[in-house]
């Protein structure tokens, strides 16, 4: 007997008893749908997290260091990092936040801040603030010419900070994409002059957008040469730095070397220092995600197991019901093998059809769960879909083996005697 005949026969038997077939498939349908949804949502959430890490920049070592006597450590840090060589370190920059009032035309960062505070403080009543409330004040940073390289920014318009800007205390700044659109809408900001704490600063460039989705955007920044801190924030010490390592392995190496260096430079008596890399938090995120997928996957696997046992149960009933038919088939020449194949294919098809329905439901479930939990469009990949289908067919075969073997072991004479 060939396979296409067996498939036809199985289809006939499945469609001949639709109600029971659907009830039997229900376990597989629910199992496959939940596995698909869980896997898709976890994959989507991992992807989103990875994208965020990518946007922030990988292989970053964040250094915080300050001395009680107020002397800046940047020059020493810079020299030390340069000494490590380019196969370990790709760049080093201050990364210190500061606050100042930035004004261009009618746009004023102090006003934006006030509006935000009102919104979050719940002081309503001033209806004029709602229109402006989407504008968040930019975060201001002091950086070096390597700021962009360290933080994974790319210049889109104009030029980046240079060593000359830093050395000459140039009154210039570079805008992140969000800050540029807040202050200049669609106009070209390059060459315009902004007032920062009342001092004129020329916009020399704009970074490309890298985090378009989130409201508290990484793009809502303005970067100044760190040397102008003497004008904008007199007396501040550069205490936050970013060192960009060349690879994941180099990150570990650089982290430990910097820790050792700063221990010698500052020590516990003369100041404070800490060194950590995003790779560490990234790694623990990944571990957490793996654990989550194992736990949820395990629950889904149990539901699939229950579905599979349901299939086995109903196939055993089918074999009992069709004992006489099996006897007839054996009498007119069916080999044991033919009987096994017939029932295996029937179980596999039952599960396969259930699997297809489960996949459709799983796609819908992924979309809904993705929108609700992650606020993004999650769509099962082709790989997940194909594996889900293969899994359901494999379950059918696995749980069909026992009933099929039982059917084939029936003695023709006894099977023919059955009612």
């Amino acid at each position, binding site marked *: *007997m*060939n396979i296409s*005949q067996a498939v036809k026969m199985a289809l*006939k*038997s499945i469609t*001949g008893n639709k109600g029971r077939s659907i009830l039997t498939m229900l376990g597989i349908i629910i199992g496959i749908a939940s596995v698909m949804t869980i896997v898709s949502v976890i994959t989507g959430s991992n992807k989103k997290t990875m994208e965020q890490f990518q946007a922030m920049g990988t292989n970053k070592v964040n250094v915080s260091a300050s001395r009680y006597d107020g002397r800046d450590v940047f020059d020493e840090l810079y020299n030390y990092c340069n000494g490590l060589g380019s196969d370990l370190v790709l760049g080093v920059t201050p990364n210190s936040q500061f606050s100042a009032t930035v004004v261009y035309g009618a746009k004023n960062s102090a006003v934006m801040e006030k509006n935000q505070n009102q919104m979050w403080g719940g002081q309503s009543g001033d209806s004029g603030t709602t229109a402006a409330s989407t504008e968040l004040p930019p975060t201001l940073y002091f950086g070096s010419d390597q700021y962009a390289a360290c933080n994974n920014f790319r210049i889109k318009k104009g030029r980046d900070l240079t060593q000359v800007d830093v050395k000459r205390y140039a009154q210039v700044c570079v805008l992140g994409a969000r800050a540029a659109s807040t202050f200049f809408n669609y106009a070209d900001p390059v060459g315009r002059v902004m007032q920062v704490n009342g001092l004129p600063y020329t916009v020399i460039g704009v970074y490309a957008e890298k985090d378009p989705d989130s409201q508290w955007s990484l793009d809502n920044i303005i970067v100044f040469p760190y040397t102008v801190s003497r004008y904008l924030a007199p007396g501040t010490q550069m205490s936050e730095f970013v060192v960009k390592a060349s690879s994941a392995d180099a990150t570990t190496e650089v982290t430990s070397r910097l820790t050792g260096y700063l221990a010698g430079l500052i020590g516990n008596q003369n100041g404070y220092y800490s060194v950590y890399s995003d790779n560490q938090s990234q790694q623990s995120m990944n571990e957490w995600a793996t654990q989550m997928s194992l736990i949820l996957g395990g629950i889904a696997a149990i539901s699939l197991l229950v579905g599979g046992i349901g299939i086995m149960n109903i196939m055993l009933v089918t074999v009992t019901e069709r004992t*006489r*038919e099996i*006897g*007839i*088939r*054996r*009498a*007119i*020449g*069916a*080999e*044991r*093998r*033919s009987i096994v194949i017939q029932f295996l294919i029937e179980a596999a098809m039952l599960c396969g059809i259930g699997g297809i329905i489960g996949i459709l439901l799983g796609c819908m479930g992924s979309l809904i769960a993705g929108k609700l939990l992650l606020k993004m469009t999650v769509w099962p990949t082709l790989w997940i879909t194909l594996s889900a289908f293969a899994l359901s067919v494999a379950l059918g075969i696995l749980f069909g083996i026992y009933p099929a073997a039982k059917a084939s072991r029936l*003695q*023709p*004479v006894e099977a*023919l005697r059955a009612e």
Partner: protein
Amino acid sequence: MLIELKNVYKIYSEGLESEVRALDGVTLNIERGEFVAIVGQSGSGKSTMMNVLGCLDIPTHGDYLLDGVDVKELTDRQLSHIRNRQIGFIFQQYNLIQSLNVLENVELPLIYQGVGAERRRDMAIEALNQVGLAGRMKHKPSEMSGGQQQRVAIARAIATKPPIVMADEPTGALDSHTGHEVLQFLQKLNKAGSTVILITHDNSIAATARRCVRLSDGKIVEDHLQEVDWL
């Protein structure tokens, strides 16, 4: 010699107190082209005889040579092949598969033989033509009368053109008129060269066969040629 039973026993629960000797030392030879009626009352062992002759069951003791081959030595798979190619079965209860239509039922032994779809269909239709039912091949067995169902069963038995046709009480569930037609058809098959073995409890039905073998308590008590009651 087509069929040789040599001192064959079929014993259930052997050695126990409840031991039943369904066949108790049977020796029987059947030549190619014979029409043999095996007659006996219920419990005489005639159904067991048919199961053994039809390779559905293996004798407990003794030898059964079919076309010179000792059945005891064959594997389950080889027995399936013999049932498929050498023997056509006709049962009292027709034993059609209810979920398949008439054509599919007749095609079934050809499917197990591995005949291709087109040739299979032609052979099945030819067999249905012989029993006069080619016009109803899309019907389900449940939509037909008992006589028609038995004719479908006959078509299934002869679709593979087996050398041996075995009929177990083929008229048992039919009225006398349709029963008559079935027996007539068996005689026709025999004339065309098939070896026919008819199992029945009814002497008047046994009279349609050239040779009559009578069983009682698992033993052959009578084996003689007789005047054929041509239908």
